[in-house]
């Protein structure tokens, strides 16, 4: 029997998880997919997804574009566009398993591409800016085509469904990466479709997010001044672009970017005794006031060679970190970490606004 809204309560609130090997050891997606099972009730089946780093070593020098198309015709016309801008090294269907839990899938392809040098010279752009602009162009101007992953040696995999089913659908047990992030979705503002599932990515940056940011529109208005287009009306997309802007364009460090988006309260900055630290925080809050993210969030931000976990400054969402040998685990709930590693050690909950940054040893990825 179908219940209509108001007659049924679905207790849930998004789930995130991540695992990374500091030694760059590659793990299959099996662990991270299983970690989502005890958190099943945090999602409602309207979105699940994963980001995996280090999965395409044989194509490590090429941008891996993961794309959804509404139909074959859109794919064909989009490929014409791609060929004008890139050399396509390889193009293929992303292999999937047919399972009853995942239905209505779009056409899902991936392309390993290199920007055409002539175009780069012509536009006087660096490679990453060129790829980012192309992704924005496709996602804004080409109805029925959507780039959901565009980094090197990494990829996002996402769908409408529960995350543990999405993992089976994309055959993640057959990929090996040194870092994985995961998300189970309970959409609050949008109906939930394939492109709207997490992770949200741009280049090799990816975000999985549990929460509901109240500064979305203020953040969006600011970031759109710099050429980013928020096409999905969902808050996580804007966090991805903020991180890209702060790290790639403004060249801030990870810690500084965390201090911008989860800035300490003025009263706490006022009380700081380390004067350099105090000045730094005053500077960051003054220069980037519109990039402060308010409202509840816990995020895992993935990038080539590492990840960062961060809570909003009031810590309105839960997040736990644990470790074992070369691996570090992050999840919304300790139970998810125990599924990945029953003997995980040093389990702790980082404070609100305290970034946890883990990098793979130099040269190991």
């Amino acid at each position, binding site marked *: 029997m179908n219940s209509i809204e108001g007659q049924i309560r679905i207790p849930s609130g998004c789930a995130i998880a991540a695992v990374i090997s500091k030694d760059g050891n590659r793990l299959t997606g099996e662990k991270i997919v299983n970690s989502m099972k*005890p958190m099943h*009730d945090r999602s409602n089946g309207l979105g699940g997804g994963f980001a995996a780093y280090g999965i395409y070593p044989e194509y490590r020098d090429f941008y891996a574009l993961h794309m959804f198309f509404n139909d074959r015709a859109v794919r064909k016309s989009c490929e014409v566009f791609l060929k004008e801008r890139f050399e396509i090294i390889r193009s293929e269907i992303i292999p999937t398993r047919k399972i009853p839990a995942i239905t209505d899938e779009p056409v899902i392809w991936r392309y390993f591409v290199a920007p055409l040098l002539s175009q780069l010279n012509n536009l006087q752009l660096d490679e990453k800016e060129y790829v980012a602009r192309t992704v924005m162009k496709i996602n804004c101007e080409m109805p029925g085509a959507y780039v959901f992953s565009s980094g090197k040696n990494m990829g996002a995999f996402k769908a409408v469904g529960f995350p543990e089913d999405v993992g089976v659908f994309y055959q993640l047990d057959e990929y090996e990466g040194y870092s994985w992030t995961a998300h189970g979705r309970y959409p609050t503002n949008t109906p939930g479709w394939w492109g709207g599932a997490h992770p949200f990515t741009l280049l090799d940056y990816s975000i999985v997010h549990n929460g509901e940011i109240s500064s979305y529109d203020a953040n969006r208005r600011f970031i759109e001044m710099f050429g980013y287009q928020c096409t999905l009306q969902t808050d996580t997309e804007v966090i991805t672009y903020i991180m890209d802007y702060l790290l790639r364009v403004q060249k801030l460090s990870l810690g500084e970017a965390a201090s911008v988006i989860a800035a300490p309260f003025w009263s706490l900055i006022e009380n700081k005794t380390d004067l350099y630290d105090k000045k730094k925080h005053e500077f960051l809050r003054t220069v980037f006031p519109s990039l402060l993210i308010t409202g509840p969030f816990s995020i895992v931000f993935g990038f080539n060679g590492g990840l960062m976990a961060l809570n909003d400054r009031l*810590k309105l969402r839960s997040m736990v970190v644990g470790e074992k040998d070369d691996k570090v685990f992050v999840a919304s*709930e*300790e139970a998810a970490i*125990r599924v990945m590693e029953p003997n995980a050690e040093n*389990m702790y909950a980082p*404070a609100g606004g305290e970034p946890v940054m883990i990098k793979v040893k130099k040269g190991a990825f």
Partner: protein
Amino acid sequence: MLFNVTGLGFKELNEKLRGSNSPVTLSGCCGQRFIASGMKDKCITIEGVPGNALGSYLNGASITVNGNAQDAVGDTMNDGEIIIHGNIGDAAGYAMRGGKIYIKGNAGYRAGIHMKEYKEKVPVMIIGGSAGSFLGEYQAGGIIVVLALNTSGKIVGNFPCTGMHGGKVFFRGNVLQNDFPQNISLRPATSADMGSVTEQISEYASLFGYDKEKILNSPFTVAVPDSKNPYKQMYVAN
């Protein structure tokens, strides 16, 4: 009686608990929510990690967790006891109005948020280690004790007792008035103050193997709201 609950959903798990009349040990617990919700007359031991809202609306049952617990333990509990031999997540004892929560380790953010009391119903939470930010947020009644045993560094995070308008928070050791809102006053615990928690601290010490005299003889600081209606200037007169 021993139940292995690996892979069991929370509904089935709670049905098993309801159907049992003797003390129960749950093994292989991993993230099941709402364990023992609303139950009385039960004695439950948990191996593994119980999920969120453990013992919510608890009405007299006794729960022991041999490890860490997640968020919202004892949400709105009315009576009974929850004993955690590890750390506890955020919002422990959310709006609890009776019973006891004893935690061996540290508490996350917002422990004791909106605890309340009425006549003989006075909930008590004792935190063995340190407490996170917003301890006792909007607290309306009941007693929170932070023992700060084996704790180096700050014993409570930022903004403790924000919006507090009833009840008491005890800290073993020093806390700074500047870290608290204006409407909260700190004072050294009197013998009358200590009298209201001696029984519970003694019980806590024997549960976790501490010397109760040593704890009770330490200096305690008490935080209380400094009037019956400390926020009337913020809202309409009432």
